[in-house]
């Protein structure tokens, strides 16, 4: 029973398209996150939601819009995809302030061609 699940695992799309990545957690955690891993393997936070409320919004282009319909789900919608958006996107969840640790999904590899 996967704790943090993301779909799809792979996404290949053309420049200019709009795409979504879905994330669900069954750990009962209050907080969910999106991280981006670039080609140099560096992991950086993009967004965080606590109980459906946005609490962290890093310097991310506004083509990226997170949506949290409930505290178990956090989706990432990307408009007008660009070549530079190619990366691996990880969803994660934790209790408030990360107490007990963060649990990561298996990642979504996005390739924009």
């Amino acid at each position, binding site marked *: 029973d996967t704790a943090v699940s993301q779909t799809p695992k792979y996404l290949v799309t053309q420049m200019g398209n709009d795409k979504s990545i879905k994330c669900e957690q069954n750990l009962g955690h209050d907080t969910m996150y999106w991280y981006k891993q670039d080609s140099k393997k560096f992991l950086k*936070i993009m967004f965080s939601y606590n109980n459906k409320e946005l609490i962290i919004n890093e310097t991310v282009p506004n083509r990226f819009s997170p949506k949290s319909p409930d505290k178990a789900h956090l989706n990432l919608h990307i408009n007008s995809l660009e070549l530079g958006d190619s990366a691996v996107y990880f969803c994660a969840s934790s209790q408030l*302030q*990360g107490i007990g*640790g963060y649990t990561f999904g298996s*990642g979504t590899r996005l390739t924009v061609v």
Partner: protein
Amino acid sequence: GIQVEQSPPDLILQEGANSTLRCNFSDSVNNLQWFHQNPWGQLINLFYIPSGTKQNGRLSATTVATERYSLLYISSSQTTDSGVYFCAVVKAGSEKLVFGKGTKLTVNP
């Protein structure tokens, strides 16, 4: 923001060797985790260790929060230990888990 530095950046070992990976951080932390990213890209949580020492099989970790560092020990390394090891911390009062740049470990048979 908080700085997280990992060393060494790259490490090549023969199977059976032991190794120590280091993580230094620049501020007080509430949370420190070690992750292993395997060759398939999965991020596996190894330890949640904001302070103290923990052991899990051939792996152990120690965090000395007052001196702002953590160590990950890998004993009797195996080829399946290959991958990138990340240290990540949450600064006290923050919500953000901040990652170091990782140590890339290659274990040769």
